[in-house]
């Protein structure tokens, strides 16, 4: 273990630092600090001269730590790190001290204080540099194949997209056939295109694609490993099989809420849901003169507070279809608020009104009431605008219900260690910064598994997730953070606190001769260090920001 030899390079940054901080004085002070073998100042440390000076001094003074006091690591750390590397020094043995952006530039009228602060910051930097350890960057190979869970519009689209890029895809569907919810749909908005026209070609392409292996009536039983190398066990009912993939896309979709017991649903054939209505229309077995649709059944209520977004449109679409098919039919839509976002949907709404579909607003306080006597007779509702009770003759009541999360979501979420929202849908890493991907690397999400979406949204989410999944597979490898946490098994008591804190599932609880021990998966760790801050047994070291390094900085801060 050679003794620590630190080289300190203080930058004038022209006048940017030198104009306010007494750089020569700072350099003289730096020389007095422990383990500082060399200190100098440069007009611009980031200039060709500065960089070559660093490299030269590393050799001449066989420095094994380098500290640059200049601007900010956010812009210049890579440059100085590579300088160290080129001089044969591990780049993580470099420490950056910010005496410009956070010192000279913000204390321009206080040269004396700025100089003292610069000294203090360098003293702290040196204290940390003394304890720096070299770190290695690893590469992890990524198997160029993807597991897509769920073969609805989203899943099939994602699978097809990836397959067309030449990646092998394992498409897993728990039902006996492809298509998901779409199979039940009649026509799709906007444009009322026949659902079949969309779904059938899609199914055929998927089925015939050389790069897609379809697993019907199959469930994902177990998933091990991490980005690049997931070992997946598939349960085909009678037998099981194993596949290895590099990425995973979750496209399990959602299901329509069945409002059992509400408005006589389940008691008479005259009361059905929108999806059931579409099936009848598809079969052409719809016979109804007076249709009353009730929106927000089971949505935006205390036990299910969210809005399913497109059910208003489904109601409008189906109302229009009924009217177009039979102009004499009466169609009422009872709603609480009408969501018709975007250009096309607003047109939809207008068209419906033109065709004579009547909209009645009701409130959560006074819900509509379906009058039945074996068959539906009428619907009584308090008309909010007219402020009085009205009774609508009706031979069919259609309940507009939201999409709800799949029952198997919790199971899948546990298996993949990805989170669910409080509503039970899957939760992506970040709505704006990292949509369609989970915090856990290599696992992506699209379609109604994430949030209720209509078909076109499902499709473009599918493209997005496929594009995301393609990145590591196309590159063929991933470079995880070198600055990761490390668990010292000697001290780990296996309490498991780190495991629940890590947003990336990078902390695993292993069983070692009967006892629990935590293990950090470097490939997944992002180096945030929250596990280290919480680890009560002191077993976790957050590399490059270790307790000892930070405590040393604090001691240096308060030193005489």
């Amino acid at each position, binding site marked *: 273990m050679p003794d620590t030899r630190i080289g300190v390079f203080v930058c004038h940054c022209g006048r940017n630092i030198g104009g306010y901080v007494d750089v020569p004085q700072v350099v003289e002070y730096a020389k007095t600090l422990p383990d500082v073998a060399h200190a100098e100042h440069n007009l611009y440390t980031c200039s060709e001269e500065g960089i070559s000076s660093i490299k030269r001094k590393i050799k001449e003074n066989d420095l094994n730590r380098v500290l640059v006091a200049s601007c900010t690591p956010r812009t210049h750390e890579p440059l100085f790190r590579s300088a160290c590397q080129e001089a044969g020094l591990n780049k993580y043995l470099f420490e950056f001290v910010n005496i410009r952006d956070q010192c000279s530039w913000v204390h321009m009228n206080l040269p004396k204080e700025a100089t003292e602060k610069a000294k203090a910051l360098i003293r702290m930097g040196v204290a940390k540099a003394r304890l720096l350890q070299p770190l290695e960057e690893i590469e992890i190979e990524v198997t160029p194949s993807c597991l897509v869970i769920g073969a609805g519009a989203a899943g099939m689209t994602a699978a097809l997209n990836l397959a067309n890029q030449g990646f092998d895809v394992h498409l897993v569907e728990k039902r006996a056939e492809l298509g998901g919810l779409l199979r039940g749909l009649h026509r799709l908005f906007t444009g009322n295109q026949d659902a079949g026209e969309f779904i059938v070609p899609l199914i055929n392409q998927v089925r015939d694609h050389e790069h897609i292996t379809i697993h019907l009536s199959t469930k994902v039983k177990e998933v091990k490993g991490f980005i690049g190398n997931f070992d997946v066990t598939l349960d085909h009912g009678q037998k099981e099989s194993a596949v290895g993939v590099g990425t995973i896309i979750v496209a399990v979709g959602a299901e329509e809420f069945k409002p059992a017991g509400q408005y006589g649903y389940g008691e008479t054939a005259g009361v059905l849901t929108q999806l059931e209505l579409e099936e009848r229309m598809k079969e052409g077995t719809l016979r109804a003169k007076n249709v009353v649709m009730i929106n927000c059944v089971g949505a935006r209520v205390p036990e299910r507070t969210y809005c399913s977004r497109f059910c208003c449109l489904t109601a409008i679409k189906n109302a229009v279809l009924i009217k177009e098919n039979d102009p004499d039919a009466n169609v009422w839509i009872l709603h609480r608020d009408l969501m018709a976002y975007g250009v096309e949907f607003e047109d939809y709404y207008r068209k419906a009104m033109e065709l004579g579909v009547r909209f009645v607003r009701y409130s959560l306080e006074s819900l509509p009431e379906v009058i039945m006597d074996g068959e539906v007779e009428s619907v009584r509702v308090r008309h909010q605008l007219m402020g009085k009770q009205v009774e609508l003759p009706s031979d069919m009541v259609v309940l507009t219900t939201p999409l709800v999360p799949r029952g198997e979501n919790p199971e899948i979420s546990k298996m993949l260690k990805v989170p669910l929202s409080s509503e039970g849908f899957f939760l992506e890493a970040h709505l704006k910064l990292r949509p369609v991907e989970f915090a856990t690397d290599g696992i992506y999400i699209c379609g109604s598994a994430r949030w209720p979406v209509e078909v076109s949204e499902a499709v473009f989410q599918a493209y997005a997730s496929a594009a995301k999944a393609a990145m590591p597979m196309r590159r063929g490898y991933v470079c995880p953070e070198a600055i990761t946490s490390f668990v010292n098994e000697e001290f780990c008591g296996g309490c498991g606190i780190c495991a629940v804190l890590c947003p990336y599932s990078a902390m695993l609880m292993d069983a070692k001769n009967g006892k629990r021990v935590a293990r950090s998966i470097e490939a997944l760790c992002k180096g945030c260090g929250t596990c280290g801050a*919480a*680890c009560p047994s002191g077993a976790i070291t957050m590399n490059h920001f270790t307790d000892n390094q930070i405590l040393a900085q604090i001691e240096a801060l308060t030193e005489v």
Partner: protein
Amino acid sequence: MTQKPKLALYWAASCGGCEIAVVRLYAKILDVADFFDIVLWPCIMDFKYKDVEALPDKSIDLCLFNGAIRNSEQEYMAHMLRDKSKALVAFGTCAYTGGIPGLANVANRETIFQRVYDETPSTVNAEGTRPQLSYQVPEGELTLPEFYDSVRTLAQVVPVEYFVPGCPPVKEQVEGVIQAVVEGKLPAPGSVVGASDKTVCDDCTRIKEDKRIRSVYRPYEIVPDASRCLLEQGIICAGPATRGGCGAPCTSVNMPCRGCYGPPPNVVDQGAKLLSAVASIIDIQDPAEFERVTQAIPDLLGTCYLFGLPASLLYRVRHQREAWHAGETVEPAKAL
């Protein structure tokens, strides 16, 4: 006799449980008596200070010192025994981290005297009599040791070779330490002996599954599942932030660990770590709700530092002493 290694035991501010822990070696205690030449054991034999003072420096091979430093007599003995001993051992939690007597660092001499000699409802002391360091009785002078403002650990007073944690150290560990001494197998000076390098969780056999909690309970508020981790059931347990080796006797009877074995290796401040761990696993984002839930921990200081206040980074409560320095009179509390 003189060939035997010399053993000394001494207690300072402590309950005597550590001494009992040694006596409770039962038959083995006789082996100890055989192996060692016991030169000092106040609860066993004469301990006129002069006799210890008379011993040459470093003539005691092993000194097991239990108890924190609360008064001048204890500090004096700590210094003397340091000089006389080759290996000075902080034996038990009080000597190691301050222990329960160290909780007195929430107060100071004046407030303690006030409570004990004035306020306590059973006390009748109209004259405000206080114990005096020196007092003239008709027959002569009587003296008392000085009661200090703060409690200190042994290592805060003199350099210490070894630390044996535990309130008290469990029998098996005491045996182990004695054995190590007998076999001359003590580790490098500065080490903690008679304990494990892992935490109490490693000793605790309760089932651990998911550490996330959404509510916190005080031990008397719920009947916990007898097989599952207490912390996972919302009962604050110091086990994860406490050095093991005790065998987790407390959790074995459904009571949480309170941290008497002190911080694990590599942990600077046991309380800070416990606090950080607890705050981390309370899985609540809404600050108001978090505030509400954490009401179930009304005494954070006592929860985090029940056995180690003097050894903590902050060492003692601040305002108490400042009030004492400013000569502020703490308003006399009402009788119970």
